[in-house]
């Protein structure tokens, strides 16, 4: 069933509507569990769109195995998704910096508060992001140190490659995931792929993982795969590589490949003068889990993140 979570009138004729598909198992008895799959907070991140489709398709095909409630929200920022706008159009505002929102506040905060209200009470939420247009990421879950203990068991079931446990930052307190974790809805943030593209392979991988988690929660009793064991990290083991010159970046490594300390990650080239501006090297032995996708760089642009350690 399609439900409207919140609706706000736009100036000329149209309404901004955030919608979800609710699927409920017919035989569910007793305490009914609910999982929410949300994506499209950042309008330029599309990887979650395919995951939503794929979940809906599989659930419809095997309705008999659904034992609880699955809520699928493909676009928390529908105007942004439709207009390739990362933030909320007209407000130039990052929607993931205004949660938990405010019923009486400006429109974006009102919308945020309705979203929180709608998800409240769920047993689990998965918030799917797709990096941005600049960086490519392997399928990973990001959780803060504070919530690591509670969330790690779920993350391990999600069939992703990597779990990044990062330090807390005050500014991240305004994210959807933090706000939901604070009101008792365990929420996992997935980052995968790259902005403005859909990587089918990642989408299927995550959909498989979501079924594993649903089985664990008792929402699904059909067949599932055996989830892959993710590599788990902490902040201290991640090496950052940033550009120090402006130009075009050409990578010399593949994404999610191992690398040695001092090995070349790529070059920054100057197309006007036909010269190499900078060579960029790996700060440690490890795996390149984030790699620059968009070629134009400024001084400071993130080029790669390397997870330190020995991987085979």
């Amino acid at each position, binding site marked *: 069933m399609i439900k409207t979570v919140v609706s706000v009138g736009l*100036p*000329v004729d149209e309404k901004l509507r955030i919608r979800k598909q609710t699927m409920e198992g017919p035989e569910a008895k007793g305490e009914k569990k609910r999982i929410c799959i949300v994506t499209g907070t950042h309008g330029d991140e599309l990887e979650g769109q395919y995951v939503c489709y794929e979940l809906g398709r599989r659930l419809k095909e095997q309705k008999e195995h659904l034992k609880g409630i699955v809520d699928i929200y493909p676009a928390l920022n529908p105007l942004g998704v439709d207009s390739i706008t990362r*933030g909320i159009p007209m407000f130039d505002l990052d929607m993931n910096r205004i949660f938990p929102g405010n019923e009486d506040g400006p*429109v974006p905060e009102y919308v945020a508060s309705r979203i929180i209200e709608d998800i409240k009470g769920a047993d689990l939420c998965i918030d799917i992001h797709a990096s941005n247009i600049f960086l490519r990421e392997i399928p990973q879950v990001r959780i803060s140190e504070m919530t690591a203990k509670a969330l790690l068991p779920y993350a391990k079931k999600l069939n992703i490659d990597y779990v990044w446990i990062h330090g807390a930052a005050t*500014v991240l307190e305004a994210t959807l995931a933090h706000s939901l974790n604070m009101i008792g809805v365990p929420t996992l943030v997935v980052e995968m792929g790259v902005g403005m593209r859909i990587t089918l392979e990642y989408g299927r991988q995550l959909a498989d993982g979501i079924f594993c988690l649903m089985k664990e929660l008792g929402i699904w009793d059909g067949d599932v795969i055996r989830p892959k064991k993710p590599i788990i990290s902490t902040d201290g083991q991640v090496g950052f590589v940033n550009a120090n010159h*402006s130009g*075009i970046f050409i990578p010399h490594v593949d994404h999610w490949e191992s690398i040695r300390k001092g090995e070349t990650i790529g070059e920054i080239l100057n197309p006007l003068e036909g010269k190499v501006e900078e060579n960029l090297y790996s700060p440690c032995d490890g795996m390149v889990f984030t790699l620059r996708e968009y070629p*134009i760089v400024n001084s400071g642009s993130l080029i790669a993140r390397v997870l330190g350690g020995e991987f085979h």
Partner: protein
Amino acid sequence: MRKEVIYQLGNTYRDDLRIYGYHFGKGEKSACIVGSMRGNEVQQMYVCSQLVKALKELEGHGGFVPGSEILVIPSVNHFSMNIGKRFWAVDNTDINRMFPGYDQGETTQRIAAGVFDVVQHYSCGIQFTSFYMPGDFIPHVRMMETGFQKPSLANLFGLPYVVIRKPRPVDTTTLNYNWQIWDTNAFSVYTNATDRIDQVSAGQAVASVLRFLTRMGFLRYTSHSGYIATVVREDDLKNVKSDAAGIYRRLVEPGQEVKKGEVLAEVLDPHEGDVVSRILSPERGIIFFAYAQPLVMERAIIFKIIKRLHQ
């Protein structure tokens, strides 16, 4: 006056970004004034340019009290201004959400770090900035309640209002917040324009900064006494929302006194022209903020009203 490039960033396709600082006087780091940090903050840059002009004249006439140095940075993000963007042109990040910055980090973190390195350690910091909702304000000084704020100093600007508000998580990365955390008395000054020049409020802003600098003992300048400010808390402002969407017609101006039940604005059907809603004032008070766009969404905040204090 000494003009200096305080931060420079190389670029392959464009000229380098050069951020300038104008130093006046010699001595202790007394006051630092920062203008536009976003590409649409033209009024903020304009106010600083007028301030540089005024300080240049004062310096020539012995208007500086020996022992104090004042720095003015009229614009930080003219890279975005020159191409009609509000935020950093490449990745749409906001420099005023990157403080205290990180010199090994992303581009806008590096710019913020470069600027913060120069602007910190001044005893007073004044930033001309803008609000994320498009609209007009009564000129005022805004302070964040960090535990370090001093509203009595904000009074020295002689602007009619001082607004105090609680910082939210996103505010912890602004220049104002970081100034305060690192021991600078920080003030944000709002005039009633951003992407256009309003001469009257710009003049008022320049006068208020000169008044502040004089009252702090950094300048010798004869100023009008200005207003005795009313201190209001952001939470105490009454929000008025539009209950309909369509063409927006504002009927009152910032600073205007309104009665309870007075019609503040009308919303028109965008195709048929009929008035579909009249927005009434819920309180007797003074219009502090007024939305200024020809179209309006449902539920948009269109006014903030200071409730009448003395009945």
